[in-house]
């Protein structure tokens, strides 16, 4: 089959659409997360989501989103909205919640294996690395992803200046009357939503890559917040599209392929910034 044959297939179309949207959302939020030294929150929250999925499977929830989304949002709020006042600081708190949730999730899956499934480690592996689940999306999931992505993009545009102000200098923003607590809360909720979405695409281990790589690549070359945001979005969308198509044709795992594409772009941009530094 050629590439155009693949593009005719509805499941490839679905995967492309959802993949591109999720990549777009995670890259938009990635810029503020990287700058706030919260690069690993994607990883941490996706482990929380993994733990919540395990609990949902054990208690037999048919639609695990009902449990996964609220739990992830709660943890995101605890980590981000507590901000600089937290007793356990950023990276330590993220590490603690992340490893804790992963361990509890895996333990539960072993103690109470979900009925009808015998291959626990296969299951776990799929959740962690994404497997091919993006190629088996149901139409409800596709619509849900589209709707949530639209919400995230609209939020980002409407709150763009506030996100900038809060990220660059939170105490100045608070001192001059901006409602930084509200903005931090909203950013935390949106991040949780994006991460639960992104788990479908690349699995929980590789979410950090979606969050971190486009932002870091863009920062190599661009120097204003606006151009970095736009560039990160473009890189992320292109890498996701390329990754999914290559994965479909070559039969490689989707998540890893997308991440490798992102690594390639990062290398390219780093090289470009070095070359420009010389001139």
């Amino acid at each position, binding site marked *: 089959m050629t590439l155009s044959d693949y593009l005719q297939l509805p499941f490839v179309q679905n995967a492309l659409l959802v993949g591109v949207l999720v990549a777009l959302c995670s890259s938009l939020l990635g810029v503020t997360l990287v*700058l706030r030294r919260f690069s690993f929150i994607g990883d941490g929250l996706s482990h929380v989501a993994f733990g919540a999925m395990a609990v949902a499977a054990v208690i037999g929830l048919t639609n695990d989103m009902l449990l996964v989304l609220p739990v992830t949002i709660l943890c995101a709020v605890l980590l981000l909205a507590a901000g600089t006042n937290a007793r356990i600081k950023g990276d330590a708190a993220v590490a603690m919640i992340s490893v804790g949730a992963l361990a509890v999730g895996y333990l539960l899956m072993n103690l109470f294996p979900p009925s009808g499934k015998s291959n626990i480690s296969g299951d776990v592996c799929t959740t962690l690395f994404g497997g091919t689940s993006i190629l088996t999306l149901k139409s409800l999931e596709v619509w849900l992803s589209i709707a949530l992505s639209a919400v995230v993009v609209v939020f980002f545009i409407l709150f763009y200046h506030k996100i900038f102000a809060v990220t*660059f200098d939170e105490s100045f923003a*608070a001192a001059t009357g901006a409602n930084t607590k509200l903005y931090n809360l909203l950013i935390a909720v949106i991040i949780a939503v994006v991460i639960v979405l992104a788990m479908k695409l690349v699995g929980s281990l590789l979410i950090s890559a979606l969050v971190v790589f486009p932002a870091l690549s863009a920062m190599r070359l661009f120097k204003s917040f606006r151009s970095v945001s736009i560039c990160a979005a473009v890189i992320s969308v292109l890498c996701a599209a390329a990754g999914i198509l290559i994965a479909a044709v070559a039969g490689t795992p989707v998540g890893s392929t997308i991440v490798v594409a992102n690594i390639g772009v990062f290398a390219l941009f780093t090289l470009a910034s070095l070359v420009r530094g010389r001139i």
Partner: protein
Amino acid sequence: MERNDFNNYSLKLDQERGHTDALLSCQDLSLGYEGKAILEHLNFEVRAGNYLCIVGENGSGKSTLMKTILGLIHPLKGEVLTGDGLRQNEIGYLPQQTVVQRDFPASVYEIVLSGCQGRQGLRPFYTKADKALAWRNIDRMEIRPLAKRCYRELSGGQQQRVLLARALCATRKLLLLDEPVAGLDPRVTAEMYQLISELNKRDGITVVMISHDLEAALRNASHILHIGARIYFGTVEGYLETEAGSRWTAKGGAGK
């Protein structure tokens, strides 16, 4: 009568007469974290046009006082009152630089414009008036040639000018400066003091500055708030007559 008592007394007289023309006033303020007081029984006021320097040893609570004035933390007792038409969100603030800012990809213009954020409420975009104000303050700080440059590539003095322009977007009346010359070389330090004095004298902007540099404080300021074991609040002239101040002049520092 101790100088500080005298000042408290005159402050009380003013309040009894119903003077409300102080931009900021604190009465019997106690501050600290989590119930532990760092500083107690603090009284001072800042009037339009004043240039107040807050001095004191490390750990005496200068930064805590600054955060309390800005409303970032609550006082344990008493309150910070704003008056003379000044609202809490109209204080321009020049914070010390944070780690995050050192490699932040942002243009000078973006940063200055963000000074208008406090007035935005939930309005998503800046108005033409906000943008004009940003440009006006960029010109005031003489950094128009840098407007498109990246903040992280600027020198320390240039970065302070950018943050000062941003603070000016947030206020028309009162600037709070937290160690504005920390880490600057002597020439740039002098420029910075000059700039702040101009804002105070020419533009009538009230200045409250935290400073380690007592010599510069005595040279530039109109009032001193010395915090620590002994609290002094009053004019610079009065401060030179106190024990701490006379120790200073005995060393020949600011003796004229």
